């Protein structure tokens, strides 16, 4: 296992950078920025809206106040007019001067604003003047008929003169009124200081004020009367100018330069303007207050946002960081580390996946290590087995070698011919034993190395059983054993030669290790397989040894049974594995044993090929000869069969040497004809050589083929040439080749494929000639 991983990510080979915390700050900044943008934006917008609304409502209120003030001042003037109306109601002649004077004096008392009052008759002559500060004048007859006051009053009932300042201090207005537009005209000098009383009563907020300017922009009334007495010119103020042009500004500076919210209204018909002004600070005090309050709230909100974003980001980042450190630790090798996240979301699921992965890794590692251990162990065992095998083999080899040494030494010193022959025979026996051992060793090596490739064909099992019978009948009778082989009509699918080897070994063992009684070989169909049993009445094999007997050099008994190397069953075991035919052992100590091998049944259960009996007739030199034809083309086989049978031959057809061997059924053929090209890449040379080897004979043979090229020579090298048979065949082949070439040249494409009557006839002739030559039949 890997060593304990360190807490920081500092495992060798890991990233040298220190752990970054950017994600946390990213989250913080993002959340704080979002809120930090949204909140102030909201605040600003709210403030702006509030300011706008407030200002609009203020301006509206102020306009109303201005209108009200204008109305009030208008009322003031109207009152005076009404009073003057009383005075001038009646025609001049109907009122006595005393009465008029009385009325005028009463008027003075009624209207404190009038400082002087003059009455003109219908001709415009002053008939009466009363005053507060100068002497009254009666009947001066001053002609004022051209005075604009008189003219205007007669024309339009009322005259409003321009505002003038007495002694440069007090503003006065000349007001004329003629109730009936004739009869009498009253001209009053109105002290406009009395408008100050009206203005002073108008409350505009805490520190706002209302004031009146005349048409020229001069101040007429103001809460601070000294401004009026100073004859302040307000005409320069933008709001005054705007009022004269008719526009309505909102925020301007007053005469002292302070910023105010201003509204105005006109006092018709005097042409005066009344202004209502409120200092901006007071006007917007509520807005400023709410600004302060909301900005405090904004500050609080932002602070809260920052805190919340820190907290939120921390919470979000924590599981991610747990993942990061956990993954780093697992990656560094601490596979038993488990990430713990309890956030209840996808991150927790991800953590689970990580843990699952780590657990899997852990298991794989454990598995791998265990497997490595097992393999190593197995290898060690195999090595051990090999060494033991070698030791046993060497041990078994030493014996005959030792004997050989003795025999050779004996031979050297022996002079007696008969004794020398006997010794030579013993030498032969020893050599044979060594040969046998070497062959067995070689077989085992070949099987172990896997160079043996089974060639599976379908063949009747009877053939195999027949060969067994022939092989062991004699030796069994010699030992006094009863050998019975029960045949079967079944066909099986297996490698003929290898299966034969297995059965040979089994029966050989049975014969060797059965002191008395018999051996039975039989077949049974079981589960779609054919079970071939070899039963003996020997000593049996104890239960605990039934596995071991298939090991190399394992012999259950001492050498009293003579012979045997202990390799037979080892070879059987390997062959059975190679062919994938399971072996069973059934035995009880002391009461014999049964060895069984299960082989698959052939798909097509065919009858063995009968050897045909030729029709009676002219005796053909080839009559009665057994010819084996090997070709992978069934048509060719049929053709050849027909041909050769017509000549009175017995034939066996097959597509390979193995099949041929199976079908020969121990009969020794007289001639082998093989196609050059066979299935599975095999060639005729090899097939013939193998067949000859299998049947331990040198049967004459020749090849037929459509090929005419120079490769005819190379197959000889391909065949391997282990024995002289191949060389003879080669020389035959060379001569045959000349025949073929000549024939082929005349009849192209002969022998393969399409049926050309001339070619067929030529081929027939050629085959016959070749057969004669091979069999050394001379025809007279």
């Amino acid at each position, binding site marked *: 296992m890997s060593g304990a991983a360190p807490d920081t990510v500092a495992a060798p080979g890991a990233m040298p950078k220190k752990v970054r915390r950017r994600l946390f700050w990213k989250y913080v900044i993002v959340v704080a920025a979002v809120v930090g943008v949204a909140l102030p934006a909201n605040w600003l917008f709210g403030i702006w809206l509030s300011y706008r609304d407030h200002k609009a409502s203020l301006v509206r209120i102020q306009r109303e106040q201005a209108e009200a003030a204008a109305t009030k001042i208008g009322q003031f003037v109207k009152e005076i007019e009404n009073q003057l109306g009383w005075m001038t109601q009646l025609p001049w002649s109907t009122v006595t001067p*005393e009465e008029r*004077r*009385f009325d005028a*004096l*009463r008027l*003075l*008392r009624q209207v*404190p604003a009038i400082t002087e009052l003059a009455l003109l008759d219908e001709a415009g002559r002053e008939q009466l003047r009363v*005053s*507060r*500060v*100068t*002497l*009254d004048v009666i009947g001066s007859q001053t002609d004022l008929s051209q005075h604009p006051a008189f003219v205007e009053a007669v024309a339009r009932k009322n005259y409003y003169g321009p505002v003038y*300042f007495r*002694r*440069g*201090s*007090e503003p006065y207005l000349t007001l004329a009124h003629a109730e009936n537009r004739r009869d009498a005209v009253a001209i009053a000098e109105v*002290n406009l*200081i*009395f408008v100050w009383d009206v203005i002073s009563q108008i409350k505009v907020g805490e520190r706002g004020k209302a004031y009146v300017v005349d048409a020229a922009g001069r101040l007429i009334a103001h809460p601070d*009367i*000294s401004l009026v*007495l*100073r*004859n302040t010119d307000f005409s320069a103020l933008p709001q005054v100018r705007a009022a004269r042009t008719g526009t309505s500004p909102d925020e301007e500076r007053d005469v002292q330069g302070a910023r105010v919210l201003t509204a105005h209204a006109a006092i018709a018909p005097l042409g005066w303007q009344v202004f209502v002004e409120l200092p901006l600070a007071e006007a917007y005090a509520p807005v400023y207050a709410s600004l302060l309050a909301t900005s405090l709230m904004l500050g609080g909100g932002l602070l809260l946002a920052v805190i919340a974003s820190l907290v939120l980001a921390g919470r979000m980042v924590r599981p991610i960081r747990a993942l990061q450190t956990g993954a780093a630790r697992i990656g560094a090798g601490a596979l038993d580390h488990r990430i713990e996240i309890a956030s209840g979301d996808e991150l927790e699921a991800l953590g689970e996946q990580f843990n699952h992965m780590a657990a899997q890794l852990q298991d794989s590692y454990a598995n791998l290590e265990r497997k490595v251990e097992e393999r190593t162990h197995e290898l060690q065992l195999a090595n051990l087995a090999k060494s033991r095998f070698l030791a046993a083999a060497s041990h078994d080899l030493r014996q005959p070698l030792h004997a050989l040494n003795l025999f050779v030494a004996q031979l050297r010193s022996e002079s007696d011919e008969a004794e020398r022959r006997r010794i030579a025979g013993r030498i032969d026996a020893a050599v044979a034993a060594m040969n046998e051992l070497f062959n067995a060793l070689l077989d085992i090596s070949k099987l172990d190395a896997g160079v043996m490739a089974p060639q599976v064909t379908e063949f009747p099992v009877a053939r195999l059983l027949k060969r067994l019978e022939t092989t062991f009948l004699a030796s069994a009778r010699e030992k006094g054993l009863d050998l019975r082989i029960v045949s079967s009509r079944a066909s099986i699918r297996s490698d003929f030669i290898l299966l034969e080897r297995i059965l040979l070994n089994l029966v050989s063992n049975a014969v060797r290790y059965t002191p008395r009684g018999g051996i039975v070989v039989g077949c049974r169909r079981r589960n779609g397989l054919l079970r071939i049993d070899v039963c003996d009445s020997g000593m049996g094999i104890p239960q605990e040894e039934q596995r071991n007997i298939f090991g190399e050099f394992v012999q259950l008994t001492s050498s009293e049974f003579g012979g045997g190397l202990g390799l037979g069953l080892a070879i059987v075991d390997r062959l059975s594995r190679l062919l994938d035919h399971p072996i069973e052992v059934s035995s009880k100590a002391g009461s014999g044993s049964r060895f069984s091998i299960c082989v698959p049944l052939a798909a097509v259960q065919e009858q063995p090929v009968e050897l045909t009996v030729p029709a009676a007739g002219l005796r053909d030199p080839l009559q009665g000869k057994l010819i084996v034809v090997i070709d992978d083309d069934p048509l060719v086989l049929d053709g050849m069969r027909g041909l050769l049978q017509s000549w009175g031959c017995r034939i066996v057809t097959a597509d390979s040497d193995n099949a041929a061997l199976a079908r020969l059924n121990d009969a020794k053929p007289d001639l082998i004809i093989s196609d050059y090209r066979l299935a599975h890449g095999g060639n005729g040379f090899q097939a013939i050589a193998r067949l000859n080897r299998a049947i331990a004979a040198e049967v004459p043979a020749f090849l037929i083929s459509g090929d005419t090229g120079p490769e005819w020579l190379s197959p000889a090298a391909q065949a391997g040439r282990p024995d002289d048979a191949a060389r003879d065949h080669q020389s035959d082949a060379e001569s045959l080749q000349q025949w073929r070439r000549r024939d082929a040249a005349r009849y192209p494409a002969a022998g393969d494929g399409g049926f050309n009557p001339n070619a067929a006839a030529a081929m027939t002739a050629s085959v016959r000639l070749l057969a004669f030559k091979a069999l050394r039949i001379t025809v007279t």
Partner: protein
Amino acid sequence: MRRREVLALLAGFAASPQPAAGAKRIRRLGFLTTASGPARRHHALEDALADLGYQAAGNLAIERRYAVGNLELLPALAIDLVRANVDVIVTETTPAALAAKKATSRIPIVMATAGDALGSGLADSLARPGGNVTGMTFRGTDLASKRLEVLRELKPEARRFAFFGNSRIIPEQLAFAAMRSIAESLGIEATFIDAPMPESFQVAFATMAAAKIEAVSVAESAVNTEACDQLVVLAARDQLPAIYGRREFTDAGGLVSYGANFEDLFRRAAVFVDKIFKGSNPADIPIEQSRKFELVLHGRTARTLGLTVPRSLLARADEVIE
């Protein structure tokens, strides 16, 4: 040791008068008058100042100087006030204002009452006084002619009129001059009767009786006002119709008065004082003229004198006392 020093420093700091923004600074006001002592009209000034936020007990200190009718005392009293380092001097009567103006051209002077500011030379113009004097004027000169008119209405047949005042007071001189010019245009006589102090009243009335004066216009000076009872009694003893300048006289039993409301004048004076306290320059504060003039008649006195009050006068009268 150090801690104690710090504490002492803090204590001293707290104890010393702080020039806080406007709230706790004590304003010093000097009051100069020819009267003998406080009168009701004087209180009007203090009440008005209190309304404007100047508490006598808190942030306002008033130094009062009374000339007790003695005009010679005024200059010394004025200098005294100047030396007292007042922030503003409020004066009653023109002589006091003149004395104050002579005593200082730096300290602002507010005339609570003045007969004729321009005529007395107290200011250059009503709109812009210039100098350091501003305040209220009651237009005594303008009223002189109206008073004569009223007398003539009450006693149409009278031909010999007198002006009872102090020749040293300039507005009274001016008032008499106006009266005389009108009298001349009307063809009647007007004589100046000089009676500066109450002690000289007896002699003045004897003079008038000797000159066979038929009606008198009494100046509305502070001295006369203080001695209004005495004057009224004397006028009644001599069966002399008199017109006064203030309603105090008619309240005391005088026949008729036509003039400004002096309490109003003092009330308005407080506004001037407030402006000056707030830093305005008196040269820029316009002088205000009184605009309301009350005509008060005493019915019983008229009947006692055997005078019929014409309807026109009744129509004009603001009040008729019985």
